[in-house]
Every structure is written in C-alpha cells, then in structure tokens.
C-alpha cells in the first residue's frame, strides 16, 4: 500500500517529514504539528482572551489605580 502514502512536512515543530496516508486530513495534521491547540479557533480564542486580560491589567495598574 505504499502508493497510498504521501510525505508531508511536519514532524515536531514543523520540522522534518512524516509519511501519512493519502486519505488523511493533511491540513489538520500540519496544523496540529505547528500548535499546541486542537484547532486554530481555540488558539485564536485563547490569544484573544489572554490579550484582553493583559490589557485590563495594564489599564488597571497604569491608569485606573
């Protein structure tokens, strides 16, 4: 079944190559190799929430207090 395998550039932290099945969702696999989050939406939401918390804290200490 070697013809059903393809090489993608992932590996740890996006380095190196991995052989995966042609049917696999390569986009999703590549995505996971580049992030600790399960999906980009989760990554974006977490970044958004943490940034808003940081902004609030900065405002609190530099302006409001």
């Amino acid at each position, binding site marked *: 079944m070697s013809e059903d395998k393809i090489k993608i550039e992932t590996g740890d932290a*996006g*380095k190196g190559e991995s052989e995966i099945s042609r049917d696999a969702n390569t986009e999703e696999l590549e995505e996971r*190799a*580049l*992030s600790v989050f399960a999906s*980009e939406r989760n990554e974006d939401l977490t*970044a958004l929430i943490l940034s*808003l918390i940081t*902004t609030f804290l900065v405002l609190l200490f*530099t302006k409001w207090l």
Partner: protein
Amino acid sequence: MAQTQDNKPLFIISGLMILYAVIASSGILHPLMKYLHTAKTADLQVTMGFIAGGIGILGALVNSVRKPGTTIIDRFVLQPLPGILLILLMAMAIRWYVEPVVKLISHSLQPVLGFKIYKVLNLNYVILGLLAGVILTNTYGIPKFAQAGVKCARFVLKMGVIMLGARYSFAELAKLGTYSIFLVGFFVLGTVFFVLWLGGIFRQPKTMTGVLSAGMGVCGVSATVAVAPVVKAKSEEMAYTIGTILSFGIICMFVFPTIGHLAGMNAVQFGAWAGTGILNSAQVAAAALAFNAVDIKTLKVAEIFNITRVLFLPIIVLVLATWFGKESGKKLTFKEVVIDKFPIFILGFLLLFAMSSMGLFSPPTHYKGKFIDFSYNERSQVTEKEWETLKAALETGAIKGLTPEQMEAVRDLVAQRQIAGNYEDRNDKKLFYHQGEQRMFQLESILAAAKAKTVEIPKDVKAAIKHAVKQVHKKSKTVTTLTDCMIWFFAFGLIGLGMQITKKAIMQAGGWPLVIGVISGTTKAVLSFVVVLWLVKDVVLK
C-alpha cells in the same frame, strides 16, 4: 522519581534564570547595564528572572513526582514549559544584550556610514529573534525537550498582533490631511492588489502573496508580522517577505535622494514621495534627511505620509482576512467568508484599535502612544535656568541668522516659558493647537539649521530650545506598557517561528517573492514619483 532525567534541561534553564536574577539584583551588572543603556530595565530583569525561573523549578518538581498525562495542564503547561523557558531565555538575551550591542556597534559605525545601520536594516528584536531561531534550528537543531514549547510561538505572536492595535488611533488618521490619505490610500491598496495579482500570474502560494502584499503595501515589518497569521503564511514566507522589504528599502534609501535632486523636487514633494514609496519607517526618515537635513519640512511631510501608510494597517488586515477566507475555500457564502473563516484574533486587534481610537489608553490623537500636549502645564515648562539663558540671549542679541518667524517663536517661548498657543485663544482649541504647532515647527527648524551649521546659536540656548520641544512631547504610560507586552510577545513568537525555518524550506520558497517584491516596489516608486511631481506642489501640511 522516574522523570527526573527528562527534567534536567528545565532545572538547568530555570536555575540559570534565577542565578541571573540574583546576580542582577546584587548590582554587579549595573556598570554593564549602564554601558548598554539597559539600566532602566534592571528591576524588570530581576523580576522576570525570578518569576520565570521559579515557575520553571516548580514545573520541574511537579514533573518529577507525577507521571505525564494528557490533562490540560500537561498539554498547555508542563510539556511546553521547557521550550517556553528556552525561548524566553533567548528573548531576554536578545532584548537586554544582543540588541543593545548591535545598537552600540551601529552608533560607532555612524560616522563612517552616515546612517545608523541597526535602524536601516531594522536590526531590532524582530529580525534578531528570527535570526536566532533560524541559526539554532539550522545548526544544533531544536532540542527535543523544547519541541512542545516551540509550538506555542504562533499563539504568542497572535497575542502580540492583538496588542499592536493599541498603538494606532483612527483620530490620528482623521487628523491627517485628506490629500495625503487619498494619495497614500490609493498606493497602499493599489500595491496590495497588484502584488496579489502578480502572485496569481507567477503561480505563487496564496499564503506567500498575502503576506508579501501587506509588507509591500503598508509598513514593512510590522505589517508582515501582523498579516502572517491572518493568511496562514509559513514562517519562511514571513522571513522571505521581511528580507525582500528590507533589501528593497535599502536600495530605495540611497536611490531616492539622488533621483529627487536630479528631478529638482522641492522639500515637500520629496517628503511625499519618500513617505509613499519607501516601506520602512526608519528608511523613510533616513532618505528624507539624506535629501535635505536643513529643511525640517522634508522630514515632517515624509513622516506624515509614512504615518498615513501605517494607519492603513487595520484596513489591510480586514481586506486580506476577507480575501484569504474567500480564496482558500471553494464556493463560500458571505457569512462563511466574514464570520466562519474570519480569524478571531483579528477581532482583538480591531477591538484594541477601537479602544485606542476612543481615547481609552491615551488622548485619541496619539500615534504609538506619543502625543503633543500644548496645554498650560508646569511640567511642560523649561527650567528657570533655561528661561534665563533664553531671555539673556534675546536681550543681548546672541541668536543670529534666524528668520522673523523663528525669532518670534523664541520670543514667545521666553514669554510663555513653554511651547503653547496664545493664552487668550486657549478656549478655541483648534486655533490654540495650531499656534502651538506652528511655534514648535519654527523651533524645530532652528535646531535643524543649527545642526547643519547654517545659523549660529550658543550651546546652552540650543539645549534650552531642545528641552522646550521635548517637554510638549508626551508619552502615554498605558500604551508604552502595552507596547512592552507586544514587544515581548513578538520577540518570543518570532524566535519560535524562526526555529521552524529550515534551509530546505527557504530553498523551496525560491526567488519569486523577491521578483514580485522588486516589480511591485519599483512600480509603486515610479508611479508615486509621477503622481507626486504632478499633484503635490507645496503645502500638504494642514
């Protein structure tokens, strides 16, 4: 205690951080910090060392006593912690040691080169961070213990992009002349679409063209970093774009002043052309000064056009997010493009931009946290000694060769002890601000003329004028702190992204980005040259 062996790197890195914090807090490093101009950050260096090192030791201890699992804490904290701390350690070394050393070397080379090389090549934490990551990954390789941590880079970079929104304000854009907005807007959007079109012709990946279009159209490096996650650009594509922009900018910096002189451009025309055609803010300033170091108008106009270009960033981010959402899928409805495919973190960037425009962080008319305050304030005044110096110089006629307007500005500075509008006009804010702005402009022209040695002013008078100008330039503490957060997020994210750039990946990108960059950049420079010569006659300043 089976995991202790795996925790060795984490113990070592954390130990190094705590050791550094102890040494820094003892004051031994103070002379070095002073020499590197980082003494102001001494407290931060100690605090960060202790906190990061402490968290590292705690994480290593927890890892030592419990079996690795798949809980949220394992995935997001314990596993990536060694990598996060390694990148943080590199970021600390770059921010506090490498960047200041590069600045010092660049300062010492200035008399030979005629410009500051770190500014022109943008050798700040952005480029140095990327380079550090690239060097590590292509020499030693990413250490195994750090691999999970490197995966946090893009996430942290997105936090930096969100923070970037706080630095700009719509009020600043609205304040600029309609003329420059139209001119720059046309070229920014024109270049973005031109690059996207060229990318299609040369069959380049959408991720590459997307990031290159923002870099070539808006403001170089920050636009590239902000747009890269929007169009899902790979790390090497981002690095390639930054390289293309900076190399093209260096050529422009030398060629623009020569062409400007040959074409007989006046100060305003050249300022408008440089601000539109050159991509990097420092390179714009360098070209303006190379063209004319005496007439402050060149630099002022170039800065206005440059700021207008930078302020288009939020619009370009929106345009590209929509373009990418539409292009990456097959047949998508409007809802799918705008709501489902739209990167959520960009909402954060736009939200902070809106908050900044409403004046939540600083007076709304700020730009990167800096604003000018002409209101009567004791803190804006020159010192008693400076005032006496200026008064005596006026009375004895020690200041010679000034224009009547410049002389009037000095006289007013003595009368009001600060740069401001007329006291009786203080209720008409627009007029009051305009008067203050005109006076500051005249005083800045005196300083430029003194620097170029076209007028003779005693040293202490020059220092007093310089101080008066400095006094009305205020900085928002909130925006400065948010910018500091952004810088750390960017430094972290870019080191991590640099670690994902292998030699092979760079080779695969080929030379096409450079070709597209040069074609679009040259087209923009030529077109803006023609338009500026044709349309801009003299006054564009409000």
